[in-house]
């Protein structure tokens, strides 16, 4: 069963997932790219991102250089497609075409609406290549702060084939933290 969200203590993703986010960031060039992060939560609050679903940036073209918006109906569609699985939408990603991967004041305002959710930002700082990637979360308590989430290594020995889901890509990335154990995460089909 999907675990009730608790305080997010860390995050990880498989290498192909990270590669896919970087590819999306490059493809969007000067505009902000965005999408959904799909994955699982461990009992200790570590979020494992196993795939992404890129989504159109629904802001008007003239605003996409520094704003992004995801169609909420797309989120509903993806959550519906995950109902029988152990996975869920665990967060969102977006890109900063020319700034640090740090939440802006506007980002923080919307993060407040999404507790227990990972916000990955890929930022091209002064043209840095590849982009720098950091993840953030806002604690749900009133007045809770936005904090950076430490990155862990994904479980070893986990093999996934690439999957495309309406333009989404799945896969496997190496992070600089502790190595997660696959057994920490729920797996298999969810019981009805």
């Amino acid at each position: 069963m999907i675990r009730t969200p608790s305080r997010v203590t860390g995050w990880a993703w498989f290498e192909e997932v990270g590669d896919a986010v970087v590819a999306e960031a490059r493809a969007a060039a000067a505009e902000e790219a965005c999408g959904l992060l799909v994955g699982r939560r461990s009992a200790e609050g570590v979020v494992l991102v196993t795939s992404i679903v890129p989504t159109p940036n629904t802001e008007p073209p003239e605003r996409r250089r520094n704003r992004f918006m995801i169609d909420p109906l797309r989120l509903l569609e993806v959550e519906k497609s995950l109902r029988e699985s152990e996975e869920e939408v665990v967060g969102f990603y977006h890109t900063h075409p020319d700034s640090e991967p740090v939440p802006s004041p506007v980002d923080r305002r919307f993060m407040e609406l999404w507790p227990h959710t990972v916000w990955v930002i890929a930022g091209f700082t002064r043209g840095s290549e590849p982009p720098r990637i950091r993840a953030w979360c806002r604690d749900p308590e009133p007045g809770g702060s936005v904090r950076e989430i430490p990155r862990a290594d994904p479980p070893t020995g986990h093999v996934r084939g690439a999957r495309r889901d309406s333009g989404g890509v799945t896969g496997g990335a190496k992070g600089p933290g502790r190595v997660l154990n696959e057994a920490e995460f729920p797996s298999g089909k969810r019981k009805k």
Partner: protein
Amino acid sequence: MSVTVRVPSALRKLTHGRGELEAEGATVRDVLAHVGRENPDLLARITEEGGELRQFLNVFVNGTDIRYEKELETPVSEGDEVSIVPSIAGGRE
């Protein structure tokens, strides 16, 4: 009318872990009030003290945004699905 209310996984801490709630009511306002009786934390997150929807909070009935219907007075029918989705957005000022 009995309807199903769907809550995204990120907000399930506010619903005792449930992503699907059953509720009664003739309008979206009734349904949210019903859900709020058992889930006051969820209600506080999605509505203002006066009962109006908070800014950047989207509610859909069978996939149709209630802003294009009658807002909170949008009628619901038996078996309808009411979905609550905060806006997902960001960027620089």
